[in-house]
């Protein structure tokens, strides 16, 4: 890895987004010998997968593969990595783009050793967006447990510039007056790997996300189950920290729905299967109700599903949840109709999980910088223009498919640098 600065080499590729897809595009191209600029808007690399507790179907921690990718980045001088950085403008054409970028001030410089002395003295708090605001950090914080780079950051909105951290820091690592930095690169191609956001659950009025703490999203469940999450891996109901005695899953929460996301988000069925294993590990007997339209666990995922279907306390009901009713005791009642039997169902549960879909994160942004965006908001890969897309910026997919097409995007970038 090399830090910012220096003239742009010929035929370089700019990778926008440093999640698993962006890191894959960057590394696969760099390991062929291409120069890569990898930018990420967050103060850390890893994107969405950094928030996942485990991958399906192996139930292995994503940080294991990320550790390898981080090592590959650190060891490869062809990759230049910039966090907290976004595109400001793009001019030129295929083989010869000029891109202006802006880095938001981290307010912590490279002297930071991650010693943690600053956190103890910081009087201000902020909602921890990494944990979907289920806990708080100080205004100066480590982005997450396995953050890369392992540098702290200050949330400028929460910081009052009291200067206590500056005093506490022995390494002169805090610069409260750090200014934004703008710089320009010349690249042959641009690969968009800007990933996805969970579909905003508040947009589905009937699912009452904002009306009860007992209604969470599947991404919140990932954080609840994570060892370094807000509950240190215990699955507790937000708000009252109750150990839920029953669970419900609402599949296609926003997906396959013409009022929301028309497409299928690909991963939510498998994510639910995986999260059933999280629950089973902690609550071996708790009843679990899964309301679905179809169980999309094709191919090698069928065996994973089959194991869960045998559990007598896990009930799969074909039927879309029409309504969720918050109850006075903190629980919620899920209302649905069984599509096969016609039976009307009102199922009370202590915790309801919305299997919210994927919404492409950078649709507007990418379109503004010359990328073609399809009717669902995903970025179309255009090799003639050398504007490429990869991972979930390109289509809803699981990690394997995302890394496959990211590897493909790397070859397109290699080809573009020959022009």
């Amino acid at each position, binding site marked *: 890895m090399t830090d910012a600065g220096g003239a742009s080499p010929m035929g370089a590729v700019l990778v926008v987004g440093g999640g698993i897809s962006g890191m894959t595009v960057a590394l696969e191209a760099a390991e062929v010998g291409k120069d890569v600029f990898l930018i990420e808007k967050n103060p850390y690399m890893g994107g969405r997968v950094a928030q996942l507790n485990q991958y399906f179907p192996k*139930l292995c921690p994503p940080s*294991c593969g990320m550790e390898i990718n981080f090592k590959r980045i650190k060891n490869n001088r062809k990759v230049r990595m910039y966090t907290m950085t976004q595109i400001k403008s793009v001019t030129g054409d295929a083989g010869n783009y000029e891109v202006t970028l802006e880095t938001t001030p981290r307010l912590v410089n490279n002297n930071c*050793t991650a010693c943690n002395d600053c956190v103890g003295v910081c009087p201000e708090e902020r909602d921890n967006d990494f944990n979907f605001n289920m806990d708080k950090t100080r205004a100066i914080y480590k982005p997450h447990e396995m953050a890369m780079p392992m540098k702290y950051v200050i949330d400028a909105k929460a910081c009052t510039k009291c200067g206590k951290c500056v005093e506490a820091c022995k390494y002169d690592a805090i610069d409260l007056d750090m200014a934004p930095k703008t710089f320009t690169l010349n690249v042959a191609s641009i690969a968009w790997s800007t990933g996805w956001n969970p579909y905003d659950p508040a947009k589905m009025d009937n699912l009452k996300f904002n009306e009860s703490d007992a209604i969470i999203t599947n991404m919140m469940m990932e954080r609840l189950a994570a060892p370094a999450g807000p509950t240190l891996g215990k699955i507790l109901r937000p708000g009252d920290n109750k150990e839920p005695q029953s669970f419900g899953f609402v599949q296609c929460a926003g997906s396959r729905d013409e009022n929301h996301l028309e497409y299928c988000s690909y991963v939510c069925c498998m994510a639910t299967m995986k999260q059933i294993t999280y629950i089973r590990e902690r609550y071996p007997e708790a009843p679990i109700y899964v309301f679905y339209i179809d169980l999309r666990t094709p191919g090698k995922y069928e065996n994973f599903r089959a194991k869960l279907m045998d559990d007598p306390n896990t009930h799969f009901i074909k039927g879309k949840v029409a309504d969720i009713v918050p109850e006075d005791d903190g629980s919620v009642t899920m209302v649905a109709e069984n599509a096969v039997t016609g039976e009307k169902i009102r199922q009370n549960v202590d915790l309801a999980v919305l299997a919210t879909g994927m919404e492409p994160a950078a649709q507007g942004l990418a379109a503004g910088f010359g990328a073609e965006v399809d009717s669902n908001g995903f970025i179309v890969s255009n090799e003639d223009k050398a504007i490429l897309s990869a991972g979930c910026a390109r289509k809803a997919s699981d990690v394997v498919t995302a890394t496959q097409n990211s590897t493909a995007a790397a070859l397109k970038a290699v080809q573009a640098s020959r022009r």
Partner: protein
Amino acid sequence: MDKKKQAYVCTGCGIGDALDIEALTGMISSEMSVDCKSHAALCSKDGRAFIEADIKDGVNTITIGACSLRVMQDEFDFGEDKIVTRANLREQCAWCQGEDADAEYVQELGSDNMRMAVVKADKQDLPEPYQLEKITKDILVMGGGIAGLTAAKEAAKAGYAVTLVEKAAALGGKALGWRKQFPTKAPWTDLQEPTIADMVHSVESDANITVKTETEVARIAGAPGVYKVTFKAAGTASEWDAPAKVAVDEQDAIDKGDVEDPNAGKNPYMQENPEAVDFGGVVLATGWKPADVSEYEHLGYGTLKNVVTNAEFEKLAKAGKVPAKVAFVQSPGGKDDDKDFPYCNSVTSMVALKQAKYVREDNPDGQAFILYQHMRTPGHMEMFYKGIQDDDGIFLTKAAVTKVEESDAGLTVSMQDTLLNDDVSLDVDMVVLAAGMIPTTKDEATINLAYRQGPAFLDLDLFEGYADSHFICFPYETRRTGVYACGGVRKAANMEETIDDATGAALKAIQCIESVDHGVAVHPRSGDKTFPEFFFQRCTQCKRCTEECPFGALDDDEKGTPLPNPTRCRRCGTCMGACPERIIGFKDYNIDMIGSMIKAIEVPDDDEDKLRILALVCENDAYPALDMAGMRRNKINNLVRVIPVRCLGSVNMVWIKDAMSSGMDGVILLGCKYGDDYQCHFVKGSEIASKRMENIGETLGTLGLEPERCATRQVAITDYDKIPDIINEFVEEIIELGPNPFKGF
């Protein structure tokens, strides 16, 4: 290299508070004969200048006692001509002890960490990359369907010469028989005209691509950069066909004439064919075969006329008109099982939708019935599904199909649990079964490697015959370096996914070739310039390295001595761990180095409380977990001394003996999960290590030492809150056993 050594201790980040720095630097300077200085923040500009000043004076071998080697790599990078080793005095000493820790014990921990790092610097050399005299950058693509055509075209576009081999007379594969193909762009509602003819044309007219039709690969010998490939006429047998692997006991049976020799008429795998063609990398894209579905007797395939597979229906549709009333059965399990047919993935759901369209196109009053358990149209394909739902001649329902039988009306399909009624029967002209796509790798070696470990990909059973990878983050990584599978051999996929997959496989082949050209490793130790070196004069031909290498990097030479193929090697060191003669090592990682580090640990022989436990830990998962434990200020038992290893597979049992004979009281190995859901990045390392540890337990037993003194534990990188207890539990067991009785001898 002529080493000029210098050691440094950083006092920042609490290290200076936890340790008596003067005593530490003094100890290193006197005891280790390497001058040792301290600095308040070695990673700072000033700290680096402090080190650089010594480098100007000729220092080239540097030991830094500071934070973990996982951080501040750039800060402590002083160029490729310097040796730098790091002692972890922060995460795994100062930060994991707590305020109430006994200062004497903490000091001993820090001192041992420094001693080991100084010895490590002493015992390693700068790497010299393995460079082949001559390499070929040409790429071989096996299979001329969509995947192979794509891989060939994309590799050629990147400037590489490609040879594309197809066993049929024409390129195009299965797609030649398609009437229409799935939508690939917004609004994803309309079927598209096949593009296969264009793809074939563009490959055939590409000057960088040589096409060989009616040709198969008899064998692939050699290694990345220097493959030697023998071609043969399709469907023929050749003396150069890759021999099957024959185990020693099987060979005995063959020699006795009890068993037929599977390799009769084939040249040995090591025999070189002078007419073989040179290649640098291989893409395997031999695709799939339609599944036989006659085992599902209730569905009538093979016994009832007009019960056909989806592949057969496509042929009918391509040739002419399809019947007017057709049922498409997606799941064979009736009421008992809601799985799709095997080897389907989500492709067959989409194929049924496509073929339902044919029924409508060909018949003004056509009716198609799609009977599914779960309709699988992921991503944008949902839009195609939605469009189909608007067609009032296509009926879709969840259904458990229980029987297909002949009737006056033609065929009658019986089903239960539908969205309409409980029991429904349906009269149709034809029933189409959603048969799966069997990978060509399922029943044949296909890749035909002339390797000692056999001609096929390993672990095919884990993936039901697919030549797939087990790594979610790294889907192209298999146990055969330089060979990258894509398309139908990897999973049942649609055209769009196949094209992406094949493009990715082409990239990986190119990347492997370029890495070979630079003499560096590919994933997961990408860029590593070291490689295993063998001192063959002392080899006893026991073949453990050859057998245990997860990547089949070793063959035999004509005398039966292991023959390394360094460009197949991934640098895990499993061979080094396997070798009982200890003749295998890397420039910066070898038996002597780790053994000397272990011996550098000071073992008090007069204090029963100061037990010493050695922990050899996987550097990718367990070591970061230990670091994280430190970052979270979890307490790690300070009787334990940690040495990171490339993979547990590289742990040579002599290190265990070194530890026990130097008076240490126990050894614990911390590595990745193994088994069917293995997480080991070198596939077999942790599994092999645990087997070796079982055996050494027995050896210890014969020496009068308790086998319990040696243990292996599986930990994940996220086990940072569990790892202190895992270690403590082991230490408690050792305390229970008491000190090593050989201590002090």
